[in-house]
């Protein structure tokens, strides 16, 4: 049995502790900005973790994950616009719609493999993007302002920064725990088996595509939750948030952190969004550095941050 104390686990534990204690730091120093920044980071980490479930464990390279962020967000936004402010209605609707969308496009997309799968998920996400632009009643291209965050009958107040942060963090930890349980279950083993050798799994009697599809739907539903959180965080939802570059950013976060590792996407999201924040403070042209950096990471740092930490602990 390998020792549990290695660089990888220590870093993960420290990051988790840091995320838990962040509001304390923010309250002590009066630095509110860092809390809002990290609320955003935590939400995106949840989205990246959900993408990692299908990319890292399922071998399905979805280039359309931003669609779920949009669907979850629009479910909250449209219901709020129509006067239904209760989160007990908004959020289940957001999850159900994301799951339904994932079921439909998953059933169609999973007929293809490889780069065709990347392209067809992208095409469906673009379709969702254009549907959102066509919603003239809800702002069309200009987007929709959400005047009131979801209410949970006095249970929790989303307008309170600290409470909202802890809700997002709870969703993130809950999501990661769920993914951990999934990948270690019999179902998760089959999904990973299909990724490694589909023919063999078929031959021993598993209906590969059914397992893939269920995994795809679970991932989409979790990402829909992230979308509902994100809409509450920004008090605004627009088609721009589900453009294909957003899907690309989510993929970058996953690969940054290390695809197919449980906490990798969380670290990847933290590093990516912090880097974006820091670079944009230095220079308006942050992408001038971020772009080539991404190229270098792909070329030289396989396995992302988790891979790097893994090599550190072996050394």
């Amino acid at each position, binding site marked *: 049995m390998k020792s549990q104390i290695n660089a990888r686990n220590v870093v993960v534990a420290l990051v988790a502790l840091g995320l838990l204690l962040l509001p304390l730091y923010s309250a002590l120093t009066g630095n509110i900005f860092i809390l809002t920044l990290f609320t955003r980071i935590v939400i995106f980490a949840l989205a990246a973790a959900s993408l990692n479930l299908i990319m890292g464990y399922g071998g399905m390279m979805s280039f359309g994950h931003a669609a779920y962020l949009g669907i979850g967000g629009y479910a909250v936004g449209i219901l709020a616009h129509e006067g239904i402010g209760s989160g007990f209605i908004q959020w289940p609707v957001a999850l159900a719609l994301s799951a339904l969308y994932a079921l439909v496009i998953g059933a169609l997309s999973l007929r293809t493999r490889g780069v065709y799968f990347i392209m067809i998920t992208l*095409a469906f996400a673009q*379709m969702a993007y*254009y549907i959102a*632009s066509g919603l003239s009643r809800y702002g069309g291209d200009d987007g929709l302002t959400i005047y009131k965050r979801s209410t949970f009958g006095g249970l929790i107040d989303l307008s309170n920064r600290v409470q909202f942060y802890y809700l997002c963090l709870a969703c993130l930890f809950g999501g990661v725990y769920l993914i951990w349980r999934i990948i270690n279950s019999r179902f998760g083993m089959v999904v990973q088996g299909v990724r490694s050798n589909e023919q063999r799994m078929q031959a021993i009697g598993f209906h590969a595509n059914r397992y893939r599809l269920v995994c795809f739907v679970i991932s989409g539903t979790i990402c829909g939750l992230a979308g509902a959180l994100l809409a509450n965080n920004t008090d605004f939802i627009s088609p721009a948030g589900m453009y294909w570059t957003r899907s690309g950013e989510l*993929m970058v976060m996953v690969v940054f952190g290390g695809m197919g590792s449980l906490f990798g996407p969380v670290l990847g999201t933290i590093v990516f969004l912090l880097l974006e924040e820091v670079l944009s403070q230095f220079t308006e042209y942050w992408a001038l550095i*971020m772009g080539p*950096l991404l190229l270098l990471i792909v070329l030289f740092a396989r396995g992302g941050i988790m891979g790097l930490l893994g090599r550190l602990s072996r050394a």
Partner: protein
Amino acid sequence: MLVLVEQSLNGLQFGLLLFLLAAGLTLVFGIMDFVNLAHGSLYMMGAYFAATFVAWTNSFVLGILMALGATLLLGIALEFIALRHLYGRDHLDQVLATFGLILFFNDAVRLIWGPAGLSLPLPAWLTVPVQIVPGVFYPAYRLSIIVVALAVAALLYVVVMRTRIGMLIRAGASNREMIGALGINIKLLFTLVFGLGAALAGLAGLMQAPILTVQIGMGENILILAFVIIVIGGIGSIRGAFMAAIFVGMIDTLGRAFLPDLLRTVLSSAAASTAAPALSSMLIYLLMAIVLVVRPEGLFPAAKR
């Protein structure tokens, strides 16, 4: 009727433009098995180069020729410095690396040319309307796009199907290792094909520039369209790309032109004018989804590897 003729020509013109972009993409994809998201950036660079050089030289023709050369060189440099290290890697790696290049190019353009768009004014001799059939006038510039693009398509066909280099390209598409083993300098061939693809993308960009404004991100929307086209047509197939490009160009243009009126018969006027562009954009993705579901390899799949 007149409107229909004019819009069909517009559709044809847009389709041919898309073909120029898609041809480079499908060549690179088919031969090197390389997904290049930065292809749209080369399209954008072509337009920016053209706007700059035309303003410098005060000559439209000289300017666009220089822009074409500059995009070709840029493509070759890009391949040489970065992209050749990504051949044979996972498609995901290629997607991410070239996604990084898009970020880089967008900000580089913003740094050099500023955030506001440029415009590429046409010379007087290209702005006159031409009478194509009695009573039907069509802008000379759009007509010249159709002529140039058709000529390039024909040239591409001749080069790929009738010359030695084209034979090597086709051989590379069906079996890379084999033509390498037969003593062909495959690295040089790849660089050449990539440069050719870049020049085609640049040509599409600079020809589109006088019609739309030259702006940051102009390559992204159209890149996705080009991907849709090569997926519909079958990856690696130039013939498929040509057919699919014309098809997509027609659907997009005719949809935008006639859907609003069509929708107005069932919807309120305001709702129709918002829903129509969205719906006509969606039509293309719907088409791709249907094609992929029915024929997962595209309509004209290239030879099996």
